């Protein structure tokens, strides 16, 4: 963050006593520009602010205010994406669209089409979110470009101060934090004031290095804080880039695997998955722990088996695989008890048709599913057993005749049990569907590394707020003139009162 140099900051008045000539911070400067008089020109004259537009733009762009704006902008959008229901899939299909629309809060219904056209229902992958991320990325990169060389220069200056001081004795140093400039006149010899100032700074806990011949000195405290600042911005750049690339290039696939069926991934034709086995720990009707075995290959047998615990993501083949959910399913068959004929069942789900075997989910609302037997005008309701002493995995099966709402009969059964009702033998067996999320692209690793940088940098900066001082003295009429330039990230340090008394 290059800030105005000392020349821009120092306000000079006629020295009349042994008091500070000027003390002006960057924030004060804005309100006091009219009385600002630059000190004498150095060897490398700095262009005036009015004409140096690129420098002004660069200064604004690398200002921490841009960090704040980008963070708040990003927060606003992320918050909005939590409030407005986001659609995780494409809404082009009418049935999918109507199902999604029905879940919307009614007050949003008149606005849905407009908001959808603006991309408000897919904020996480829209330009709305990518724009502040891009701003944060470019800003953080610019800050790194400015800050890293300065931090490196300051680190080297600790061991070789003479080199830094000799290289630019008159130039105003670049600032990474809050710059302060102070010019004072002292009624004493320059050598004496310089030595005394450095001694005072050492007593205050600063590490000091000086060149008595050139009367230029350095003093610093918590030097690592400058690297913490760099780490913060490198981390922000990586985080923004990782999130940007993740939302742009990364693809997430949410697959529903069924036993004995091949599941293909749209866009990844080489990925064919077979659900081989599901082992549940605890109640099979409410799986909270379990392990899923999936086989990867064209045929049902052969291929590499992959073991995936529920809710424990794994990196496989450059993709992040997570078993998000295991849904208990009931498979029902019906046979005529007399002649053994298989009867067709019709489940109450969209697009279903009559089949000899019905698969019903127990994860729907009220944990119950319905299936009908058109040949006998009977409807079956399967639900979890609600009796207090029912053992885990037990089901309740109720029979309804026609459109009656009271059940004709009820039975409790376990996996594989058979029930005879009205001349029909029903068999229910339990199985599980698996919801698998596959995240393609490893940009999230970049984002995670970025977060590590942000955490290390931000965390270190809370305790390690650095201060950097450059002290110069030179002979002036009747005494000497001392300039102190401070770059600090500590809100209350160094105290202004202390700076005013240095060298006195």
């Amino acid at each position, binding site marked *: 963050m290059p800030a105005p140099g000392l020349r821009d900051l120092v306000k000079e008045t006629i020295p009349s006593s042994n008091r500070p000539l000027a003390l002006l911070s960057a924030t004060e400067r804005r309100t006091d520009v009219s009385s600002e008089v630059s000190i004498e020109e150095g060897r490398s004259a700095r262009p005036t602010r009015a004409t140096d537009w690129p420098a002004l733009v660069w200064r604004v762009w690398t200002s921490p205010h841009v960090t704040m704006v980008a963070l708040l902008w990003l927060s606003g959008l992320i918050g909005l994406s939590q409030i407005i229901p986001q659609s995780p899939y494409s809404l082009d299909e009418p049935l999918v669209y109507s199902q999604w629309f029905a879940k919307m809060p009614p007050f949003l219904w008149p606005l849905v089409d407009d908001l959808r056209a603006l991309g408000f229902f897919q904020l996480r992958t829209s330009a709305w979110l990518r724009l502040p991320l891009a701003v944060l990325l470019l800003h953080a990169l610019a800050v790194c470009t400015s800050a890293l060389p300065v931090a490196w220069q300051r680190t080297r200056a600790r061991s070789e101060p003479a080199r830094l001081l000799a290289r630019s004795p008159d130039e105003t140093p670049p600032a990474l934090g*809050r710059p302060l400039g102070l010019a004072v006149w002292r009624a004493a010899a320059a050598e004496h004031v310089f030595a005394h100032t450095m001694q005072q700074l050492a007593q205050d806990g600063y590490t000091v290095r000086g060149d008595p011949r050139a009367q230029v000195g350095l003093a610093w405290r918590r030097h690592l804080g400058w690297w913490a600042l760099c780490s913060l911005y490198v981390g922000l750049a990586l985080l923004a880039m990782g999130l940007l690339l993740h939302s742009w290039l990364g693809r997430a696939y949410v697959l529903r695997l069924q036993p004995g069926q091949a599941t293909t991934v749209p866009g990844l034709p080489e990925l064919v998955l077979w659900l081989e086995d599901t082992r549940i720990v605890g109640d099979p009707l409410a799986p909270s722990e379990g392990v899923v075995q999936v086989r990867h290959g064209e045929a049902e047998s052969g291929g590499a088996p992959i073991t995936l615990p529920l809710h424990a993501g794994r990196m496989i083949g450059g993709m992040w695989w997570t078993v998000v959910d295991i849904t208990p399913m009931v498979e029902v068959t019906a046979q005529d008890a007399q002649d053994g004929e298989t009867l067709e069942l019709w489940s109450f789900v969209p697009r279903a048709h009559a089949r000899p075997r019905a698969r019903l989910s127990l994860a729907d609302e009220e944990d119950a599913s319905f299936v009908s037997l058109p040949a006998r005008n009977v409807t079956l309701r399967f639900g979890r057993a609600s009796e207090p002493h029912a053992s885990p995995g037990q089901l309740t099966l109720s029979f309804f005749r026609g459109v009656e709402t009271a059940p004709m009969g009820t039975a409790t059964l376990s996996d594989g049990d058979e029930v005879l009702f009205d001349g029909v033998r029903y068999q229910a067996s339990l199985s599980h569907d698996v919801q698998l*999320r596959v*995240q393609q692209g490893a940009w999230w690793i970049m984002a995670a590394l970025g977060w590590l940088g942000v955490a290390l940098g931000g*965390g270190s*900066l*809370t*305790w390690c707020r650095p201060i950097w001082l450059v002290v110069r003295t030179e002979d002036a009429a009747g005494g000497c003139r001392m300039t102190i330039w401070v770059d600090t990230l500590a*809100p*209350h340090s160094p105290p202004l009162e202390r700076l005013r008394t240095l060298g006195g």
Partner: protein
Amino acid sequence: MTAQAPLMLQACGTATVLMWLVAFGLYVADALRVEETAGHLQMARLLTRLGLLIGTAGWAGYVALTWPPLPWRAAWLPPLALAALAIYTLLARRVSKSPVSPCLYGCAVVAYGVALASWGAGNGEALTGNPRAWPLIAIRELAAVVAAGTLLTYGAGLLIRLRPTPALAASRAEQLGDGTLRIALWGTLLALAAAAGRAWLVWGEVARADVVTLFIAWAFIMAASLWQMMTGMSMTRMVHGLALAALVLLGAMFLVTA
């Protein structure tokens, strides 16, 4: 008797939190004063000890009557709050008084309050799912409680500063503001990292309610800290607004997410 256990926790817990809030306010006011006032401190000590007794009795009765299973927040947060306050009252006399020391008290108030509020809202059922994610939940919870506790201290300091008196030390208020924001930044950093890690491990995505609210709270506190660092001014309206908004978000996180 078992049916009345939740009522017991609710009644005792509410009384405890109210007493502690008053005592906490008195401690913060005292930390900001140039000289301590014996009357206020005596009242604060009395309320703290009374709260410790009632809070311990309420929680112990609840645990004894309903174990197991317990909603995990109601099971683990109150004893942490009680332990933190016991330490605070023990150390209060021995350690030199720092403006930031009431933060521990703030964390205890938040911990007990969160346990009650989330239990009342039906959140925090018994922990299930991948046991590998439980430590991440614990880290998120503790770090978020610390962040919210320090921000509560910040808010209390702000309330007290609204009525400036000659006894109030401006420098102590600034130290309190600066110190609480630093701790809150650490807390939200850690909580966000744990929440995001857990969400990625368990669901393969980080767009979850707790991660989102923690990210916004972190961004607010980070922005406030940057503002402090760059302007050198620690108690400005901008910083107040961001800190209080972060506190509200952390509260919402506790209520909304399990």
